[in-house]
Every structure is written in C-alpha cells, then in structure tokens.
C-alpha cells in the first residue's frame, strides 16, 4: 500500500473535475519508506474529538462528512483513527461541557468548531493545560491565543468573490449587497473584502444593503420588503447561504433574477442549474469550503505525527465553475449532504496547509 497516497476519494470523482494547479488535491509524491518515518502514528489507535457548534445546516453537515471521509481515507492507508463527534445545538454552554467531557476522556487531539468566539476560551485553555492539543477551526478564531487556528480568510475570499461578481457585469452597474448578521462579529470582516474590491470598481453602485442573517428565508423576506424601493439591479452580492432567498424574492415579484455568484448549498446549485437550463444563466459558485473538515483531521494527524504545525493556518475557498456544476451536484448527492464540498488528502494538507505562514490580522 502506498502511504499517504491520494485520498481525495470521499466524494468520488471530485478530483477529476478540479481545474488542477496548486490548490487541487494532489497524489502522493513521496515513497512509502520515507512516509513511514514521518508517520509514526500509523497503526496506533488515535481518537480525535470534534466539537460541533450545531448541525442544522447543510454546510456543517458537509464538514462532518468531509472529516469522516478523511478518517476513512487515512484508515485505508493504515491508520486506526476514531472520531468522537458532539453537537452543541448552538449553545456555547453545552459546548463548554462537551469540551470538558472530551478532555476528561483524554482524546488525542481536540478539534473545536466554536459556537462562540469568547465563551469557550476557558474550556479550551483547560484542555490544553490537561495536555490535549486543541485546534480551533472553521467558525473561529476564538479570542484565546492558545489553540492552533485553522480558519478561512473570509475577507480575502469575499474580496475575490466581489471582484468576480463585478467582472460578471463588466465592472459597471447596480449591485444589491446582502450582508450577514447585523451587529455580528463576522459580518464586518466579510464586508471589508467587499469594500476593498469596491475601491477598484468606481462604476459599481451599491443600491441597497440588506442583512440576511446568513439565512435564505430571512433574506427573501427582507429583500421582498424593500422590492418596491429597488431600481433595476444588475447583480447580487451575498456572504453565502442567502443567494437563493434573494433570487426568489425577485422571482416572486415577477422580476428577472440578477446575476450573482452563488454559494454552495444544494438548493442554490440546483436553482442555478435550472436557471442555466431555462435561460442560459452562466455564473459560478464560491464559498468557504466545508472540506475544511478533512483538512482539520489531516492537521490533527500531522500534529500527532510530530510535524511542525503553524499556529495559524487558512483553509481554501471552493469555486465551482459552470462546467463543473452538474458533477458537483451528483457528487454532493452521493455524499448524502445538501452542500457541495471538496475533500483534501493528507499529503495535500502537508504541502499546502502546514507550509503556510499566516500573519494574524
């Protein structure tokens, strides 16, 4: 068996529809012997605790599936990994208890996807003090400086999405900006990416800003509410998980659906597929990749293998081009979740994540 071989098999065929280049999951490049030295944990029982903030969200479910896929792939390569996954049901207090519980059980690594940026600090620091290496990932960073952070560069990612959206309408026109949670900590960070992009596009006019709370229903109601005040809209910009609701508000009002870069929820992808079929609507989708679940497991294993793990790492955004759309929908349905994602293998994680040198903003 080739150790650390290409294990992006969780969703069959995803690697195939990838455009290639540095960002794509790559095959194993080192020889088996070399890998044995670097992977002393192979064959030994490993328990990785994963504390999830909530599970009523396809993206979070995809993250867990991705983590399980990474576990299966590593186990197929000779590891003996068990995942202990707990769901805090959006309650930071519950999550504190669960972190304490996992610490007491003595998991080998603790992966915390935080439901709160500050409420978990004590529990996380206690886990680290008890000798459990702890990685905060996905929904962080937390305020404590002690855990390792594996997060998304949302400002950078959103800036790229904004630039691509503006390019879709040739850098000129009226844009409806759908932001996340009013007064939340995350929204201004996303918005800073939009502001950075806007500086380079003087002919783009933001005609209205709506806070959609990262929810399709809320977005639809709020966009519908201001529909009578909206002029012709050329494009919609969202922070993800709101594009379908925004589009439906226009449809329900009998208006054309403006161009937008969709997020990765299944409902958005299927809607886009339909629009493309009916009206030749061509766009792309981009968002934080729920495949961060596989990266987090890989990083945890690398940590146990004694690899140097940086204190702060960034996970990639996923981008789905028009030509890849159908395949992503098929793969998503095969995986049994309602959000598209991409798995990353162990070797890819070593080469692209552990080598990062991210300065904390």
């Amino acid at each position, binding site marked *: 068996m080739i150790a650390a071989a290409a294990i992006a098999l969780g969703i069959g065929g995803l690697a195939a529809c990838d455009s290639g280049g540095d960002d794509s999951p790559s095959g194993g490049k080192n020889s088996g012997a070399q890998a044995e030295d670097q992977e002393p944990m192979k064959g030994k029982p490993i328990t990785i605790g994963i504390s999830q903030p909530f599970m*009523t969200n396809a993206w979070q*479910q995809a993250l867990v599936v991705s983590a399980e896929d990474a576990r299966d792939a590593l186990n197929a390569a000779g590891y003996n990994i068990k995942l202990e996954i707990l769901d805090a049901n959006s309650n930071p207090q519950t999550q504190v208890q669960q972190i304490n519980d996992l610490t007491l059980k003595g998991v080998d690594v603790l992966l915390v996807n935080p439901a709160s940026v500050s409420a978990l600090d004590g529990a996380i620091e206690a886990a680290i003090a008890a000798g459990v290496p702890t990685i905060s990932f996905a929904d962080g960073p937390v305020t404590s400086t002690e855990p390792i952070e594996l997060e998304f560069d949302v400002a950078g990612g959103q800036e790229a999405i904004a630039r691509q959206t503006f390019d879709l309408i040739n850098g000129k026109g009226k844009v409806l900006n759908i*932001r996340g949670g009013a*007064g939340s900590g995350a929204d201004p960070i996303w918005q800073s990416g939009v502001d950075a992009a806007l500086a380079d596009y003087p002919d783009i006019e933001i005609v209205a800003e709506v*806070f959609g709370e990262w929810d399709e229903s809320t977005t639809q109601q709020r966009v519908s509410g201001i529909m009578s*005040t909206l002029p012709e809209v050329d494009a919609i910009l969202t922070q993800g998980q709101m594009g379908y609701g925004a589009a439906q508000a226009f449809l*329900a009002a009998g208006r054309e659906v403006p161009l937008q870069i969709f997020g990765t929820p299944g*409902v958005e992808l299927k809607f886009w597929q339909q629009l493309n079929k009916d009206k030749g609507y061509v766009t792309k989708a981009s968002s934080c990749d729920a495949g961060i679940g596989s990266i987090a497991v890989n990083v945890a294993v690398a940590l146990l293998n004694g690899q140097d793990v940086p204190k702060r790492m960034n996970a990639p955004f996923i981008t789905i081009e028009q030509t890849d759309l159908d395949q992503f929908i098929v793969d998503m349905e095969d995986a049994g979740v309602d959000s598209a994602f991409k798995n990353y293998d162990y070797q890819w994680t070593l080469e692209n994540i552990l080598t990062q040198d991210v300065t904390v903003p």
Partner: protein
Amino acid sequence: MNPLTTSHDLVHSPIRDLIHAPARGAAWRRLFSRPWTGALVAAAMLWFLGGLSSGGLSLRFLAVNATAAGFLALAGVAQMTVMASGGGSFDLSLPYIITLSAYVMSAASGGMLGGNQAIAVLLSLAVGLGAGMVNALLVWFLRIPPMVATLACGYILYSLIVGIQRSSTSVAGGSLQSLLRAQVFGFTGALAVCIATLVAMWVLLRRTRYGYFLHAMGQNREAARLSGVPLGTMTLITFSVSGLLAAWLGVLISSFQGAPSTNLGTTYLMGSVAAVVVGGTSISGGQTSVWGTTLGAFVLTFVVTDLIVWQLQPGFQHLIQGLIVIATVAVTKLAEIRRGTTRSKQHTAQERGSK
C-alpha cells in the same frame, strides 16, 4: 345589543364583560383606548416613514411587506392561543414545528409522493397536529410546565429536522406556489390565505364554545374548572391548534419561498411572542386579540424593512428596533393604566399581575 359580544371588541374577556357595562363615549375615543392602539399608530407611522422613499403611503410598499407580516401574524396567533390558556403558557416548539413541516412539505412534494401536493400538505399538517398533541399530553398528564414540555418537544423535532434535512432539499414549487405567488395589485395569494386563516382563528376564539372556555380557563383556571370547563380537553385542543397553525405556516412559507432552510422557523420564536405583546395582548393569559396581534406583526415587519430602507449602521438597527417596540408597548400600557384609573383599578392590577 348583547354586552357579552359588543364591548371590548378585540380583547375578549367574558368575565370582565359581565362586570362592566359597554364603554361609552365618542367612537374615536374608544378607538384610542383599545389595547392595540399603540400598534395601530406605530404601524401607520412606520408605513409612512418607510414608504417615504418610494412615495409616501405607497400601496406597493404595504403590499410587499404584507405577506411577511401575514406569516408572522399566523405564528403570533398560534402563540397567543397557547398564551391565552394561562398559567404562563408558551409554545417554544413553534419554530421547530414550522421548520419541520416546511421540510416535510418540500420532501413530500419533491418526488417522494409522486409530487402529490395535497398529500404533502396533509402530511405536514399531521406532523404539526402530532407535535401539538404530544405537547398537550406532556403538559396535562405529566404536569410538565408548558415552557419545559414544548422546549423538550422542540429538541426532539430538531433531531428530526437534522435527519430529514441531510438529504432532501428539493424545491417545493407546483400549483400551490403559483397560487401563493399570484398577485393582485401587488398583494399576494399567500396574504389572502393568511387573512382567511386569521378570520378562521377569530371565529374559533370569539364565536365558539372553545373560545369562551379558553378565555375563562386563562383568567381563572380553578373557577373555570368548577364551572365545568374540561381543562384536559381544552389543553389538548389548544396545543393541537397551535401545532396545526404552525405546520400550516410551514407549508405556506416553504411553498411561497420555494425551499425550506434550517433557520426558517427561528425568527418566529421571539417574533410570535413579540407580535402578541406589541399587539397589546397581555401575556398573563385569558386574553386574545387576533387583529391586535396582526397589527403587532405589521409593526415588527415594517421596523425591519424601514431600517433597511434608511440604511442605518448595523449596530444602530437593533437599538432602533428595540426602542420602537418599547415605545409601542409603552403607549398601550399607558392607555391601559389611564383606563384602569377611570374604570376598574381592580382589573388593571390583575392584568399587570401585581398587587
């Protein structure tokens, strides 16, 4: 004219009606001493202020907000029915029933049942009815306080939502969606369905024996029991009505919007209670006001839209929202206190649950 039905048109309170003669005075004075006066004034002002940017009291502005307000009013009336039964009752499972029913609707109409929407609707309603009955059984037979029982039931529904959501977000479209999205002068079919449902609820609460019993039960449970009100049956019907209404709302929202989302019901938890309170109905039970709650729903919906139209800073939005809600309720309460001093000190004290 029967004093039992003519006085206090909107906040129904049979026991009070027996004690007090119908309010006298000019029509306008009566209008301004209603419990929902604050909500009416606030809704009109917010409509005006929000519509300004698109031309004053624009009918279009009202139309595009009326559907969302209608949805919130249904949730509010469901919550109000449970609150009216007294004893600090709240139905905390409402948001979960709404979401679950929306998913059942979407899953069932998206192929699982061969696209038969009538069956999908019935199945969704059955889910709501079932959840409501479970709530009632927990409350009545196990004597679990309603807030705890419905919260527990909500957790169970939450697991079902996670399960059903994992694989099945199909788009609920079809003829029901076309009907709900049909527009006359900008007013949607969904709004018409909401109004019809609200009228049905008004009839149930104001014109049936169930309605009279519910108010009696909420005002004084022991007196109601001694007068022969079957409290167990009343509890069962009350939670079932609430569950059914929530499920019906889930059906309407998922069909109108096109697909459910997991947070679909969340805003209706606090929103439903707020609509009732802003609409001027006491949370201590024994009162209902379908139209007051509807006005409350309009206030809450307009607030959100107006703040978007005005383009305020995000931090500011919540502040203004809070202030408007407080102002609306304060107007109502001040009017209530004034009425109390001229009419019945005893009942004001009772309503406020103090002294």
